[in-house]
């Protein structure tokens, strides 16, 4: 006897992510799932934001081992950074986010940034209950990443190209990268920034604030 099910294989993930989405909605928190390869500057972007982005936000950082990234943020004077050590897991799960979020004092919190495990494949498949996925690219890692890892760029609503201060020094076709991003998602928003010099962050901050206003 064949029993039709026709349900997403990620049903459990979807339920848990839905719970998170409801929690964030009730607390009026805009949540961003940041995905990029190791070394693209996800933590550096957050470090820059810790010093220059005025609204109240918290950061949950996932890494396979160590709390080095959250420690780095805390040492820079930003106290609302929390680590999840996956112990081998290649991505964060909505359950991990919910557990960690329950430990956080979320009073008055406006934004939650989740820095996923450095990986362009697995994190893109797991909804955490975020408002949107933000992919981070960087100039030194080469201009073919979008073509090589389509699953992330099909889903990312925002792409941030970091380390643009190095653009003149490397063979990186930024226009081609932007075109590739649009091919994957015609509605994608692309920002060019440098976490080192602060270039491009003003526009990015305005965008985030606009998204927050729309959600409220």
């Amino acid at each position: 006897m064949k029993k039709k099910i026709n349900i997403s294989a990620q049903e459990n993930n979807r339920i848990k992510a839905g719970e998170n989405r409801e929690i964030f909605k009730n607390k009026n928190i805009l949540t961003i799932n940041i995905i990029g390869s190791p070394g693209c500057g996800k933590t550096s972007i957050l470090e820059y934001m810790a010093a220059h982005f005025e609204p109240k936000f918290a950061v949950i950082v996932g890494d396979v081992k160590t709390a080095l990234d959250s420690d780095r943020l805390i040492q820079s004077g930003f106290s609302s950074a929390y680590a999840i050590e996956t112990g081998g897991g290649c991505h964060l799960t909505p359950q991990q986010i919910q557990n960690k979020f329950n430990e956080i004092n979320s009073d008055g919190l406006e934004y939650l940034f989740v820095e996923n495990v450095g990986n362009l494949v697995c994190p893109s498949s797991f909804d955490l209950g975020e408002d949107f996925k933000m992919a981070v690219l960087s100039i030194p890692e080469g201009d073919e990443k979008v073509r090589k890892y389509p699953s992330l760029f099909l889903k990312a609503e925002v792409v941030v190209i970091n380390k643009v201060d190095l653009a003149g020094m490397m063979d990186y076709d930024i226009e081609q990268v932007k075109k590739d991003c649009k091919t994957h998602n015609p509605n994608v928003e692309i920002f060019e920034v440098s976490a080192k010099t602060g270039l491009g962050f003003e526009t990015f901050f305005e965008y985030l604030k606009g998204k927050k206003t729309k959600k409220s």
Partner: protein
Amino acid sequence: MHEFALAEDIVKTIEKEISSDFSQMQEIELEVGTFAGVVTESLEFGLTVILKDKDAEHVKVKIISVPAQCSCECGHQYEIENIFQECPQCQSLNRSMNSGTDVIISSVEIAEE
């Protein structure tokens, strides 16, 4: 790498959806989109390991590959094998994906009593 986590989710979902246990089950049928970012061999391997752990190694796993269907801004619907395949009608790349990005548990085969 994430296929094992996906396999765990699939088994949990099936356990929730069907009232009987795995002893009567014969086959699990999955539809995997060609743009789902899933290595089917790894998914199959993950399922084999989890089913074995549940004393259900007799359960077969059938995976059907689902092509990606797009709706172009011109209204034309077409299938793509790679992301840079333009609309055959208007050559645009401005489209939305209708299928081929998900993993669906389509059905399970259960032995009749």
